Structure formats: structure tokens, C-alpha cells
């Protein structure tokens, strides 16, 4: 391979590298540095608590504290739980929806896609508060449930885990739908016809052809949903109770309500590590999915 050829990929990667090295390296280092400072807290010497951090100090104390802190592990556990549940719900709901949109004829397809996008064009707050009104004790959903007789007292759909999952799903699922739809659009319809001709009904044609061919998109959609749900901030913050705190929420709490910057930074590092681990773990099924999908080999 000539030198020129060896450099070609780096040429393609250059814009991103500049962006990442320029803007990401510093924050990442900053985050780690901050987590290694001594906290202000009771020992700040001002006679008052909560004083951000002590510049220039080095300690692993925060990490030690985190490791021993049940509270942190609870939050981490909930974060991961929420990430997985929301991802699962998103995929389960988004796949049929994306498939449905894919099957729609031209104009109606555009309308359906527009509907998915439009929900993300309005302010998050509006969506969340709109949802809060809907999920209230006396809101339409609870009234409907009581009317059907499924329940006799209002379900706690707000300020609860249910609310967080519903809210986060609502925020994440448009991405899932869009990614899955883009994947399905690339499925060659003549292959479906061929499968039908070989005696496969619509369901078998789906499981044997459409599904495997859309696996790469499914893999990507899962990854994006997972990462997004793991970083959940707004819906646990506004639709959850203190029982449903995620790492992203707690980073904010630690930094700006409890004024403990090193702890906030350390939790940020924890979040980075957690997501990295999950994303790496996910690479295993991801690769499996890709392999079973007939994706073509790249140029050698």
C-alpha cells in the first residue's frame, strides 16, 4: 500500500478529528482532573459547607467515597435499568411503526415521518409538561383506564418510574423510528417478492428476509437508543420522584445543589465508564447482528 493510500482514511477522518481533538479532549481531561480534586465541603475552612472544590489538590478520595456509597450504586443501577428498559420498549414499539411507515405510499409516508419529526421540533419542556397533564391522577389516561375498569384508583403515572419510562421513551423513540425507517428503506423489495414467490407468507417473508436485512439498522437504532436513554436527564428530573434519579440528574444535583464539584465530576466519569462498558458489551451482539444481515464486505 502506498503512503498516499495509507493516508486516505485519515483524510476522510480529518474533520472529525479536528472537532474531537479541539473540543473534546480538553473537556474530557477537565472532567477527570476535576474528579481528582479535594472537595470543599465541611473542611473548606470557610466555616461553611459546600464550596465547589479545592484547585490544585490531588486525591482519589471521591472515588473511594463513590465506591463505598450505596446511594451511588443505586443510582447507577437505576440508570442502567432505565437505559435497558427504555431501549427495549423503544425497539419493540419503533420497529412496527417504522415498518408501517415504510409500507405507506409516498405522500402518506411523508406525513407520518413529519409527525415523528414534529414531536421533536417543539420544546422538550412542552412535550414533558404536556405529558404530565396527560398522565395526571385525573388526566385523560387515568380516566380512560378507570372507565375501562382496568383500575379503580388512579395509577401513579407521574412522579414515578412509570412516568420516567413513558417520558424517556417518548423522547428517544423518534430517533429509533427514524433510524429503523432509514434501514428499512434500503431493503430491496424484490427480495421480498422473491420470498413470497417461494411460498413465504407475509410473516415468514418478514422474519426471514426483512428482519435479517434490517439487522444493521436495528443494531444502530438499539445503540443510539441505549446511549440516549442512559444519559436520560429531563424525564427523570421532571417525571420522576427522588427514587428515580439517574446519573445525569445526580451530576447536576451534586454540582449545583450540593456544590460538590469533584463528586459531580467523578459521577460524570462513572457515567462515561458505564456507557462505554455497555456500548462495548453491546458490540458483541452488534457484530453478530451485522454478520447475519448480509452486509457487504468493505473495500480491502
Amino acid at each position: 500500500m502506498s503512503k498516499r493510500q495509507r493516508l486516505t482514511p485519515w483524510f476522510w477522518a480529518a474533520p472529525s478529528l479536528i472537532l474531537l481533538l479541539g473540543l473534546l479532549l480538553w473537556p474530557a481531561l477537565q472532567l477527570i482532573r476535576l474528579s481528582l480534586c479535594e472537595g470543599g465541603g465541611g473542611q473548606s475552612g470557610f466555616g461553611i459547607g459546600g464550596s465547589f472544590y479545592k484547585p490544585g489538590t490531588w486525591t482519589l478520595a471521591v472515588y473511594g467515597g463513590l465506591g463505598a456509597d450505596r446511594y451511588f450504586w443505586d443510582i447507577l443501577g437505576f440508570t442502567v435499568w432505565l437505559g435497558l428498559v427504555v431501549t427495549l420498549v423503544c425497539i419493540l414499539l419503533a420497529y412496527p411503526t417504522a415498518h408501517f411507515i415504510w409500507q405507506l405510499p409516498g405522500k402518506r409516508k411523508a406525513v407520518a415521518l413529519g409527525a415523528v419529526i414534529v414531536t421533536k421540533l417543539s420544546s422538550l419542556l412542552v412535550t414533558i409538561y404536556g405529558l404530565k397533564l396527560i398522565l395526571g391522577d385525573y388526566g385523560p389516561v387515568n380516566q380512560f383506564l378507570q372507565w375501562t375498569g382496568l383500575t379503580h384508583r388512579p395509577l401513579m403515572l407521574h412522579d414515578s418510574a412509570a412516568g420516567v419510562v413513558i417520558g424517556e421513551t417518548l423522547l428517544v423513540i423518534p430517533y429509533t423510528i427514524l433510524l429503523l425507517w432509514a434501514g428499512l428503506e434500503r431493503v430491496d423489495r424484490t427480495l421480498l417478492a422473491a420470498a413470497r414467490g417461494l411460498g413465504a407468507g407475509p410473516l415468514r417473508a418478514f422474519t426471514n428476509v426483512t428482519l435479517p436485512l434490517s439487522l444493521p439498522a436495528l443494531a444502530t437504532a438499539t445503540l443510539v437508543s441505549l446511549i440516549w436513554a442512559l444519559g436520560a436527564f429531563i424525564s427523570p428530573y421532571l417525571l420522576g420522584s427522588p427514587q428515580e434519579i439517574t446519573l445525569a440528574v445526580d451530576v447536576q444535583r451534586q454540582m449545583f445543589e450540593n456544590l460538590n464539584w469533584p463528586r459531580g465530576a467523578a459521577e460524570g466519569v462513572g457515567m462515561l465508564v458505564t456507557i462505554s462498558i455497555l456500548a462495548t458489551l453491546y458490540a458483541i451482539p452488534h457484530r453478530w447482528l451485522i454478520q447475519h444481515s448480509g452486509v457487504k464486505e468493505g473495500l480491502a
Partner: protein
Amino acid sequence: MASVRLENLKCSFSGVPQAVDDVSLELFSGELFCLLGPSGCGKSTLLRLIGGYLAPEAGRVWIGDADVTAQPPELRNTGMVFQNYALFPHLNALENVAFGLKVKGVRKSERIAKAEEMLDWVGLTADERRRRPSQLSGGQQQRVALARALAFGPNLLMLDEPFANLDRLLRERLREELKQVQRRSQTTTILVTHDREEALALGDRIGVMHRGRLLQVGSPEEVYRSPASSTVADFLGHRNLFEITKVEPDRIEAAGAILPKPSGAIVPRDHLLLWPNQLKLHRERGTERFEGTVTQSQFAGTHLVLTVTLRSGATLEAWRELGQDSLASGDTVWVEIPAAAVSVVKQADE
């Protein structure tokens, strides 16, 4: 197995008002029907209509006793080799072939055995059948498609140029064996081909399509030797086709030559068809011989194909065996046209 009846099928695309135009056809149970026609005449479209991959605008499709016009492909039990193969990219060759059996619910060991058998038949090595379509050569892919269409035992087999990318040897073997398999299983088969010889050799009957219409249907000999129109004759590759310009009680004129009138009613605008292997070329002048010049000489394996331009300007094709003394471009020849070399093609209104 199943007979097929097409009644006034019609199909159009935007910009192509008559991709398939009022086609009616009856296929007999167990017959092998060859569909011929120029590129873009609607052959593939017709197959797609029969297979249910496309809904006709008008007309009906019957398979056996059932009107299947409204039925989806999976209920028609037709095996199809698509022109572009349409192999499943995520399955290897073996899985592709076993697909039809799998969705039929055949046990794994059984369907693998059947698929292996089919792949043996089309000559894919053990190694090749573990590969995905993207890792197979063009011809190998085509063979997988053929094996796939046959493996699940369809009632009706539709092959859209199934041998186009195969070498002659393989093609001949496969078409031989296909014919045997087809005979044995009595599977009604439609074969689209561009190869006249293939059609003549294989087909129980032949249909010639042109611009979405079915111009002639008949046995190979019938169609080849008595084309229904000059379009058909032209398409079948008859080069020596000349419009008859003058008809007298016992003579006719065509291509500037006066010939004895063949039997039967002849009117001007009918065509004269001369068989190139029956024409005799002489180096000497003689009665009833027409002077011309050899303008091209092409080697065709077992014989030479000579192009002769007559005095009248008409161009003839005549074959010459290799053993005979050779004629080269520029030589002057005298062409003898025996009665056996002459056929008449009636002009149908199209």
C-alpha cells in the same frame, strides 16, 4: 401439473402504456413453453403478472382450475428465476436454495438434503455453497437462483433467462437435464430466453412477443419455418427476408430477382424468406443464377457465413461448408436459389 390460462392480461407503467398488452395464452399441463422476444418487449413483466408479483390492470390469471388473479404470490406455488436472480444476500447458497422448503415447514435434514441435491445438479462445489451471493461469480449466482426455483417443487416454473450467464457446456447440460426433470415431474414451465436455438431445442411450444403483444404461438418448427409475420421472422434471425414487390401468375419478384412463384396465394407486401443453408454459391455464371459479390465472410465453427450483395443491392446470407474451396471478400459469385430454399411469410396486420 397445472395448466395456466391467461385471459386478456394488460399491464402498463408510467411512460409505458402497453408493457403487456392484451395477452391471452393457454399453457397445457406439463408443457415447456419458451417465450421469445426482443429486449424490453414485456417478457419479464408477463412472468411477474403470472407469478403475482404485479397486479394486472385488466385480465385474469388461472392456474389449474383456480382464478388466482387476486392471490398473493405465496399461494400460487410458482417457482421463479428472476432475471437479476434476487438471491437473499444474508443467506448462503445452500440456505437460499433451502428457503422455499423451509417456509413450507420441511424438516431441516430433509431440506438440506434436497438443497444439496439441487446444488449438486447445478454443479456448485461444497465450498461454494457455503458462500453468500456477493462472494459468488455471476454464473454461480444464476445457478443458485435456478436451484432455488426448482428445489421446492413448484406447480409452475418460470425461468427468466436462466442460462444467460452460463457457459455453453454448462448451459447445454443444464437445459438438457432441466428438460428431463421437467418431463419427469411434468411441471408446467415457462422459459424466457434470447437464444433462438435454446428455444427451438427445448420448447414444446414457442411464443414470440413484441411490444407487449404475443404475435405467434406454436411448435418450434412451425414458428421457425413458418413465421406468422415478417416481425417474427425478423426476430427469429432470418436474415434473408425480402418484401415481394411484384406478383405475376407464375413468377414473383423480390430483392431484384425474378423467381418461380411458390404455391399458395401471394400478394405484394408478403415477404420471401430464403434459407441460407439451401442457397448454392457458384463461381460460374448459369441460368437462374444471380450475380453478386461476397462482402463479408465469417467463421461460424462448422461453416462459413458469407454475405453476398446482389446486383440489385439486396444483401443475402449464405452458408458454406468449410471443406469447400474458400470464397473471400470481393469474390464474385453466382447464387442459385433452389425451390427448397424459398418460403413465403404472410404479412399480418399488426
